[in-house]
């Protein structure tokens, strides 16, 4: 993975001291609240319902065991012994004090980490495929490009005060595990007719109050032109995006208002000025970064793996293997997904002890690296098949092996009203209700992949619009109610879910999900027809009937 140069380290170190001084000036009354607010947000610090919340950047979701141990140490020293992984593949601490944040940032800087631009109206952490570099269908590893974007976007002097936040995702192949179509900019590595690899560029996707699928602005962009093209898009947005209403300030609103063709014309006109500038990446610059993402030293596959026998004699292990591991591009290896969705725990939460256990596993079995996923899980990307049983035992001993990846209980859930000052409704209690309802339901595994995303407010941090089943918490006269959407997807076939009907009372959410799933089983033509396929084929009416019929 990328190792800091002196330049990188100096930037992060100086940034820590800059923020320390900003905090000092704020506490001394020299910095108005509103200004400090913008500065602390650009360092990942929110003031939440209970306490400040610090969001630490994990660039494109990739971290070393050393870094994960540091996160554990921070959780123990400055927080209450746990952290929370987010859909932007960052980690959040819910209980630090405002005064301790400069020290936390200094600790992070020791292991090449920071919290720069994890919030605020600036370019946020670039995300990518958690299986980058290890999945066979990939055209090219997207992470070097993410690192190039990370550097370009970090402390960019022109784009620190955009109309609104700005998120970029990069995918390396035909599958989309980064929700790239609902990002401000989605970059897809593709091959053109000449066989060259470059980017398809999408712009203006997003969720929140106005969910929009991104539109193609350029079918093919040469890699060397990546930064000039991004800069052209950002400049057009910075100059023209709305600043009078924060709910209409994202680039998706601008693109829709202008129309994609006019927007493209403006971007291309700006790009013509800067395409040949020093923003053009030289091959040696690209190669320097790519050299930091070379594959690890894989061993030749063992001739007679004991795996088949282990799977045959241990059913629990087999179920985990089938659900929580993924085919690796190198024979003899598997990708292991570490479930952060244990029974009755807040999705995405992880304790300091669990972090250390995963860090140890990474060191022993996966070349010392860990990835965070958009679905709020972790990944050990390079585990030898012959080590899987041992890895599973240790994960299981740490409550990290619930075999639920891709199933209903692998929910994306925001922290909701319990923690977040934006939320309208609680989410964690509903997640528990769903866990309790479905823990012992036999058909859950037969149902296959169901993506359930639940947000506690319209800001859609848990991406409910693109869940196969989306749940949005709403406040009705002081009570929590839940609006269902069906048929969303954030993958290559991205779509926005449609509202099922009137919202559901809090204590009926799990029962409603059951009705929906039973209707699906009823409707499907075979086990091969997924939940999403059925919703798309049959439409919402049979599901409406199943959920609301009793009300008639």
């Amino acid at each position: 993975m990328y190792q800091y140069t002196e330049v990188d380290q100096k930037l992060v170190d100086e940034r820590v001291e800059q923020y320390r001084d900003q905090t000092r000036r704020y506490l001394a009354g020299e910095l108005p609240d509103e200004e400090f607010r913008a500065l602390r947000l650009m360092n990942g610090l929110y003031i939440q319902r209970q306490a400040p919340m610090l969001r630490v950047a994990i660039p494109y979701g990739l971290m070393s065991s050393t870094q994960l141990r540091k996160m554990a140490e921070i959780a123990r020293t400055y927080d209450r012994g746990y952290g929370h992984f987010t859909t932007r593949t960052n980690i959040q601490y819910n209980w630090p004090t405002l005064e301790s944040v400069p020290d936390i940032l200094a600790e992070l800087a020791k292991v090449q980490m920071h919290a720069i631009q994890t919030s605020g109206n600036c370019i946020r952490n670039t995300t990518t495929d958690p299986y980058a570099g290890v999945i066979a269908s990939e055209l090219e590893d997207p992470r070097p490009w993410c690192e190039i974007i990370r550097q370009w976007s970090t402390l960019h002097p022109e784009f620190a005060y955009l109309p609104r936040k700005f998120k970029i995702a990069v995918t390396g192949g035909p599958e989309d595990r980064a929700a790239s179509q609902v990002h401000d900019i989605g970059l897809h590595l593709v091959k053109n007719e000449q066989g060259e690899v470059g980017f398809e560029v999408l712009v203006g996707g997003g969720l929140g109050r106005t969910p929009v699928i991104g539109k193609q602005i350029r079918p093919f962009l040469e890699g060397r032109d990546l930064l000039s093209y991004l800069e052209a898009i950002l400049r057009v947005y910075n100059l023209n995006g709305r600043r009078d209403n924060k709910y209409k300030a994202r680039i998706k609103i601008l693109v829709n208002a202008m129309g994609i063709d006019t927007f493209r014309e403006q971007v291309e006109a700006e790009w013509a000025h800067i395409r040949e500038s020093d923003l053009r990446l030289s091959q040696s610059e690209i190669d320097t970064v790519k050299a930091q993402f070379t594959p690890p030293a894989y061993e030749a596959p063992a001739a007679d793996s004991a795996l088949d026998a282990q799977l045959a004699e241990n059913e629990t292990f087999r179920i985990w293997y089938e659900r929580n591991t993924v085919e690796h591009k190198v024979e003899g290896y598997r990708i292991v997904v570490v479930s952060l969705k244990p029974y009755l725990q807040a999705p995405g939460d992880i304790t300091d002890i669990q972090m250390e256990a995963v860090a140890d596993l990474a060191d022993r079995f996966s070349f010392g690296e860990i990835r965070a996923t958009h679905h709020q899980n972790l990944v050990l990307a390079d585990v030898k098949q012959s080590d899987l049983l041992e890895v599973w035992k240790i994960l299981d001993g740490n409550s990290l092996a619930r075999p639920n990846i891709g199933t209903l209980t692998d929910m994306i859930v925001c922290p909701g009203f319990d923690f977040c000052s934006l939320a309208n409704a609680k989410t964690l209690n509903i997640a528990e209700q769903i866990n309790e309802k479905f823990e012992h339901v036999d058909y859950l595994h037969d149902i296959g992949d169901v993506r359930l995303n639940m947000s506690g407010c319209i800001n859609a941090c848990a991406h409910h619009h693109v869940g196969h089943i989306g749940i949005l918490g709403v406040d009705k006269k002081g009570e929590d109610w839940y609006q269902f959407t069906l048929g969303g997807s954030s993958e290559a076939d991205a779509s926005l879910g449609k509202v099922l009907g009137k919202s559901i009372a809090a204590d009926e959410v799990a029962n409603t999900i059951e009705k929906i799933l039973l209707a699906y089983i009823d409707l499907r033509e075979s086990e091969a027809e997924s939940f999403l396929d059925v919703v798309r084929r049959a439409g919402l009416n049979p599901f409406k009937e199943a959920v609301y019929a009793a009300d008639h």
Partner: protein
Amino acid sequence: MPLIIDRTLVAEDKWTTVAEDQAIPADGAIILPLAQWLEHHDALKGREVGVQVNGDDNLDQVLALNGQVELIVVDIPAFTDGRGFSIARLLRRAGYAGQLRAVGDVTRDRLAHLERCGFDAMLVPDDRFESETLNAFDEVSVRYQGGASVTRPAYPQS
């Protein structure tokens, strides 16, 4: 108000800002709003004239000031309004070499960004200026991006 030019506090400012509804003074160096300048620039030939613009002005008209005036002032109505950064970049790219001055909600924690985008002059409100404010420029001494004066990104250093 304290005026910083090239990172230095300057005592003298010869420029007088003329408000939209104010008569143009007979002599001296004056700063006019863009609309006034567009209306009167023929009559002002030979005088020292600067023009004040903001993010709502027509960008083509703003860029056309290059070569026409000695001073361009960009009004930043709120520190969160980042349009001024892009306006500065575009003016410098167009070849504008005169003084580029940021006024309005211009305070310490934006000064380094303003400078990197091409501003050489910043007018800071009285109650927000201390001698220590001038330290803001070098808090982060390394950078990944080019800017108005240094165009190379950091990669060649790595």
